[in-house]
């Protein structure tokens, strides 16, 4: 007979009892004929029962691991400590909905923390009572502990933290995590497939932290966390197949729902005992049952909710765990709600190719026309890293004729939203003048690429461009309204960005490439001046900014803040001083374009500044950004103009030498300020570069290795340059070599492109 016993360990929750919002189960049974139970387990509920921490560990038990019952006990105890801290952080986040990224980082860091603590404990014990019988050196003397020292203590570890909004599981080695949701669907998220014998990953292995598998699952909206069951491998092995094991897990959860956790706990010793009898192995099960949310709330409200309503989710159109089908054939599983917008909701979904984003339309917008647009966009197969392009239409296989969405890549974390920039949020603190102008340039080029293929975007606004504060890289999202010029699409645009003729609703006015140019200019003005170009003194006279007011400001009577012919809408110097300052800082080349597009271009769509003009101006400005010698801040300067005062410290800038370039064929002239670490890019040498690629460096200003203060231009390209000196002599500058910067120096880059250094 196998012996059932309650597990020892840190302060835990009485098994079978409700703890806070959860009921827990806990049982350990010794394997048939075993002397010592080498399993350990832990259940606790930090935060007054708002979270549950579960853990099981299985000491390897063979001759080589003769102290593994200790290793298993330390494993669950140390996990409980790490996970307890983690659980408190998770509770603090719950409901707030932010900070998940930091928490996810913490979840990834936990294995290393756990392994470190486990090893310290093993080492301490081993120093006191060496497993190999010899007197070992003290750990601080040896510096490095051979992995073999940990072998006697080898153990697996399966652990979990679950709150109302989040489930995180960690697993090292064998054992099982089983999740049973409200509908009775069973999942084993960390399963690695069929068991391949007795070999298992272990805490005693080198780099054990890296071997830990992680499962992270958030519950968007009111999705209920599943029941979570952790067991050592003895339990699963006692069943003929996985299906039998999963039925058992499901049965435990169902019985607990029906008869209460206490009843199930009372029966567990017998059930596990039978299992241990079959497998011969120690068998341990811990579980957290019955997610708390709605039951807790109904309790608080003093009323019970009808049973049939428990399974509905209240937030979002799709349910976590729901299986959808992409038209390309792969299965798409809904994971969590990212957010909602004007046209639908965006979810994180799991696909065979990894995580993707899914935009799911509100039913009233999921019409044939939108479907047709989507299919057109997908068929086009846009392969450009600046766009999150629709990849495949997704349907619900149960209701294939009601509603659809589309898959796209997940936006990488480094990209931030523009409103964060406009708020001057800490998340975009890496932004510099250079990265800002670079972002503006990339934005212009991205839309230029679309427009050059005859596609209008139709809804350029601050919500669908994301940027990397450090580099200025951009990502264009929400491309599902882009259509070939002349076709109709559902969206008219966002009022603040809409061209006046569209705001007014002029007869025959349609969103298209020419109206995109207005929206683009508004966006650029916001980026560089951090204010709307039409909201000056006249906007301040409006008390309630409603639709009528906006129609007037943007549609019927739009007046640019800096319209040279009228001053009635200038920014108020008392109330909008930042706008005046920002305008003063803009180089003339950009001010001219803004004035043109927001005066002539307001009335005449054909007179709007084109992307190529913006691109050339922004590129020029980028090449003229100079650091302040006093405070180091980057400053925009007027190309070829007088040095301005630094926007930050107020000192007059000292401008570095200029590289005056002329391209080979079309003789396009460019000038690049050659400050320390300034770079010459391939696009500088091209007549009409298709796009600005700031990774394609051909030259870089570097300091002489032995003579500080002496600068030169280092050849980072693969071709040999030529320099011509004042006396007419010619010298080669091979790749990796540097030409000293001195006034009048002539450089030939090859292909007829040449440059002169000017001061």
């Amino acid at each position: 007979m196998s012996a059932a016993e309650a597990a020892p360990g840190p302060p835990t929750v009485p098994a079978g009892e409700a703890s806070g919002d959860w009921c827990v189960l806990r049982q350990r049974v010794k394997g048939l004929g075993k002397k010592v139970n080498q399993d350990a387990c832990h259940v606790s509920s930090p935060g007054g029962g708002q979270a549950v921490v579960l853990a099981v560990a299985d000491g390897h038990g063979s001759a080589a691991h003769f102290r593994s019952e200790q290793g298993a006990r330390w494993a669950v105890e140390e996990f409980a400590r790490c996970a307890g801290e983690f659980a408190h952080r998770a509770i603090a986040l719950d409901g707030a909905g932010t900070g998940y990224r930091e928490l996810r980082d913490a979840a990834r860091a936990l294995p290393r923390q756990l392994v470190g603590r486990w090893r310290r404990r093993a080492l301490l014990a081993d120093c006191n009572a060496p497993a190999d019988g010899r007197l070992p050196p003290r750990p601080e003397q040896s510096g490095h502990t051979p992995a073999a020292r940990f072998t006697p203590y080898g153990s697996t570890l399966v652990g979990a933290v679950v709150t109302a909004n989040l489930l995180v599981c960690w697993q090292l080695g064998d054992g099982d995590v089983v999740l049973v949701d409200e509908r009775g669907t069973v999942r084993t998220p960390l399963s690695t497939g069929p068991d391949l014998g007795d070999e298992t990953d272990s805490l005693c292995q080198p780099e054990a932290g890296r071997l830990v598998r992680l499962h992270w699952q958030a519950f968007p909206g009111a999705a209920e966390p599943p029941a979570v069951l952790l067991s050592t491998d003895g339990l699963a092995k006692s069943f003929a197949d996985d299906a039998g094991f999963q039925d058992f897990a499901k049965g435990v959860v169902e019985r607990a729902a029906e008869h209460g956790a206490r009843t199930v706990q009372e029966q567990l010793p017998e059930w596990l005992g039978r299992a241990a009898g079959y497998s011969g192995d120690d068998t341990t099960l811990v579980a957290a049952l019955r997610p708390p949310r709605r039951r807790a709330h109904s309790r608080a409200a003093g009323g019970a909710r009808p049973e049939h309503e428990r399974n509905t989710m209240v937030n979002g159109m799709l349910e976590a765990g729901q299986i959808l089908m992409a038209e390309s054939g792969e299965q798409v599983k809904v994971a969590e709600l990212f957010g909602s917008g004007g046209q639908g909701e965006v979810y994180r979904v799991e696909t065979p190719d990894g995580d993707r984003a899914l935009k799911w339309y509100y039913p009233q917008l999921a019409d044939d026309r939108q479907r047709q647009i989507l299919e057109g966009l997908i068929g086009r197969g846009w392969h450009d890293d600046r766009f999150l392009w629709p990849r495949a239409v997704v349907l619900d296989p149960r209701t294939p004729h009601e509603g659809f969405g589309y898959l796209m890549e997940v936006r990488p974390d480094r990209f931030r939203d523009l409103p964060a920039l406009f708020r001057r949020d800490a998340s975009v603190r890496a932004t510099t003048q250079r990265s800002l102008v670079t972002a503006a340039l990339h934005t212009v080029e991205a839309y230029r690429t679309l427009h050059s293929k005859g596609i209008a975007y139709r809804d350029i606004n601050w919500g669908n461009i994301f940027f990397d504060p450090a580099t200025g890289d951009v990502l264009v999202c929400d491309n599902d309204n882009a259509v070939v010029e002349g076709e109709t699409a559902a969206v008219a645009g966002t009022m603040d960005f809409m061209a006046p003729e569209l705001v007014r609703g002029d007869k025959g006015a349609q969103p298209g490439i020419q109206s995109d140019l207005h929206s683009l200019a508004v966006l650029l003005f916001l980026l560089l001046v951090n204010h709307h170009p039409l909201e000056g003194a006249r906007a301040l006279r409006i008390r309630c900014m409603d639709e009528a007011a906006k129609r007037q400001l943007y549609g019927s009577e739009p007046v640019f803040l800096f319209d040279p012919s009228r001053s009635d809408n200038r920014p108020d110097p008392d109330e909008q001083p930042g706008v005046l300052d920002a305008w003063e800082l803009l180089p003339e080349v950009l001010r001219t374009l803004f004035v043109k597009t927001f005066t002539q271009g307001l009335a005449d769509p054909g007179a709007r500044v084109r992307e190529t003009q913006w691109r050339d101006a922004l590129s020029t400005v980028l090449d003229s950004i100079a650091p302040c010698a006093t405070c180091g801040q980057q400053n925009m300067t007027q190309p070829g103009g007088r040095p301005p005062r630094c926007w930050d410290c107020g000192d007059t800038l000292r401008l570095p030498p200029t590289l005056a370039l002329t391209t080979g064929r079309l003789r396009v002239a460019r000038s690049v300020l050659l400050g320390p670490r300034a770079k010459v890019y391939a696009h500088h040498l091209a007549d009409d570069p298709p796009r600005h690629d700031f990774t394609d460096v051909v030259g870089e200003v570097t300091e002489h290795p032995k003579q500080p203060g002496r600068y030169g231009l280092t050849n980072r390209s693969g071709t040999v340059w030529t320099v011509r000196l004042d006396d007419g002599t010619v010298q080669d500058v091979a790749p990796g070599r540097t030409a000293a910067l001195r006034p009048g120096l002539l450089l030939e880059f090859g292909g007829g492109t040449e440059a002169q250094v000017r001061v």
Partner: protein
Amino acid sequence: MTDHSNDAQETRTSHTPGIPGGPMAKREVHFIWLLDCSGSMSVNGKIGELNFAIREAIPEMQQAAKDNAAASLLVRAISFGSGATWHIDEPTPVEDFTWRDLTTYGGTDMGAAFRLAAGALETPPMPQRAMRPAIALVSDGQPMDDWRAGLRALNSTPWGKRAVRVAVAIGADADKAMLQEFLGNPELPILEANSPRQLAGAIRWASTVAVKAASSPKQGTEQPAMPPMMTKTRVESDDGVVW
């Protein structure tokens, strides 16, 4: 003088040291919940569902506010039962907003709630400039006081008459004709919530409508597209006055 230097300092301590200028200027969006706490709301745990739905809507509300850099969303709540009272009277920036649970107390004095809201929508206490405020009314029954007088008071305030309005009817007993009158526009739908799911959906939508309306009225409509999970009703007008 002192104030001025403080302002300047605040601009300086922007979180983006590498670019000039402080945060974009914002207009306030005032959002006021008017929430029914009559005795009938305690039947079948409706008040608990409402508390739950509002808590659920807060993150969404915060996100919607974040997405609009030119608006700052301030939230308050009035509860009405026997009389009406400010449940949360400080206009609270949505990023700091937390919910205290409502409890029920007696009748359905909606008129009192309208009058309380009207007092808050005069200038002052409203600022000189703002976006359209929003009033979201949630009720499950018939008003028991002189609600028309209260509504007139609300409609006579400068901000009250311009407010974006949303009405949520909980269950079949709600007075939909009255709610339609509150909306003031026969084209605007009442959101009907007959289940917790519908209620949460309606509250979620209602809570973000103001700031979304302030930033992105698309497709020519005055309010953003409505999510699907709720029922919309329109009260049919009578065939005629005399027949």
